[in-house]
């Protein structure tokens, strides 16, 4: 299992904990990540401005991975959606691919042949490693530390991990998803259900209407808060920005108190596989997961 690791814009700057835990867990599971230096933004922020520029940016990244002969593994769900959609368009529409390749040669000197795939890391864990194998690995891991069965987590799938479903080849059900829940349970932790699990984080409109964006995020924090979870599990840095990095702003603006830890799934998996809290970047999390930090500290 070898992939081109696509970090995107946000992860390498604002979610080093996510990147760290992803690299650690992949290594442990026998997944090799190759870093491609020339990767740039996926094109998502350019889509509202100019469809062709956005498609060219995506195609350029796809071409870079194709040069390496590697499938792309993404960490950000918005990158996943953007690259997977561009990939599907370019694979299915030959005339479009020719037009895009012509401009791509002129601007970056590359062409894309349509031969690679794009999948989110969590999807790769689910499909290629599998829940059963993860459970075995967790059982074998000599943690000598805390026991995750004492913890319960709420799964936040977010939007682009699942939707639009027509670009994800039948992976999971957008209205009633289960893969992230299954992955959480594979760590030995409890899955905590809550109201309106499918709700968006609001991150898509943060730059245009902060008040509306934060109020969308608040709804979910309210629902998870009353469900009494030890934390929320996310697989996208935008969702984390809304629920964790902006949690204090939401608490102030709406006069509420959550102090709800938000973890990236690979951080939770890492703890289950025997890494310490420090090794999965838990100290970098904005909202301190005190119970977990205590249970999974070194020594």
């Amino acid at each position: 299992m070898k992939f081109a690791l696509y970090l995107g814009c946000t992860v390498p700057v604002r979610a080093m904990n996510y990147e760290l835990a992803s690299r650690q867990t992949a290594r442990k599971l026998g997944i090799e990540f190759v870093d491609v230096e020339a990767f740039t933004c996926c094109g998502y922020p350019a889509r509202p401005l100019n469809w062709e520029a956005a498609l060219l940016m995506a195609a350029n990244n796809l071409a870079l991975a194709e040069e390496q002969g590697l499938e792309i593994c993404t960490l950000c769900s918005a990158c996943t959606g953007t690259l997977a959609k561009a990939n599907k368009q370019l694979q299915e529409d030959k005339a479009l691919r020719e037009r895009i390749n012509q401009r791509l040669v002129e601007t970056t000197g590359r062409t894309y042949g349509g031969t690679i795939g794009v999948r989110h890391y969590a999807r790769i864990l689910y499909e290629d490693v599998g829940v059963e194998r993860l459970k075995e690995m967790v059982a074998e891991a000599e943690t000598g530390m805390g026991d995750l069965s004492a913890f319960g987590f709420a799964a936040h799938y977010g939007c682009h991990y699942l939707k639009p479903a027509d670009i994800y080849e039948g992976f999971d059900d957008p209205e009633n998803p289960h893969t992230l829940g299954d992955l959480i349970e594979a760590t030995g932790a409890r899955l905590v259900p809550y109201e309106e699990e499918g709700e968006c984080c609001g991150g898509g409109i943060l730059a245009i209407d902060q008040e509306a964006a934060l109020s969308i995020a608040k709804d979910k924090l309210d629902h998870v808060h009353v469900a009494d979870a030890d934390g929320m599990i996310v697989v996208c840095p935008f969702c984390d920005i809304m629920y964790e990095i902006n949690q204090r702003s939401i608490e102030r603006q709406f006069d509420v108190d959550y102090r709800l830890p938000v973890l990236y799934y690979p951080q939770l998996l890492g703890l289950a596989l025997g890494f310490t809290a420090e090794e999965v970047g838990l100290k970098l999390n904005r909202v301190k997961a005190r119970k977990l930090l205590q249970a999974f500290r070194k020594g």
Partner: protein
Amino acid sequence: MAKERPGIGEGRSPRQRASGPGEIVDVGRLDAGFRHEITAEPGGERFMRCFSCGTCVAGCPVAGTTAGRAWAEEYNPRRIIRMALLGMRQEVLSSKFVWMCSTCYTCYERCPQDVHIPEVMNAIRNIAVREGHIPEGFRLQAELLRDHGRLYEITGFENERRVEQGLPPIRERATDVHRILVRSGVVGSGEESEPGEGEP
């Protein structure tokens, strides 16, 4: 009790604001070609299939959270599509609300007519941008992409932090994105700022 709507000819002139609740639409100002303009734009192809059922509004997180605000700031995909179908070109293109779609794709999955609403919103935004209507936040993002190839600049500070965490440094490579964005006319070349090719 429902708030009484202003009668025809009362209140604000319909020419000033032809699309508020209870206000009449001035047919003389409608642009019958707008629907075809949207249909011809990538992403807008299926837009005329809308039969106004409102499934999109029912599941929309932004509509849910902005309902009850002043109408102009409220996000309501059904109304936007209706306005566009009617040919209210200027009102739609200069509005803030076409920028309020969070692209969560809930409506995309549920729409019985497969209108692909988030793509329609992007098609309308692309037309709006060509006419000079671009929100400040989006313009700034485009400039960041042009100058750094990504939404966040990677400086020595970021790389120092990365190395501290045991992560490989990132080398900023902006040339490809710079060429793509400038050539597509999304942003000016920003002559004063050369694309960054930062050191690791």
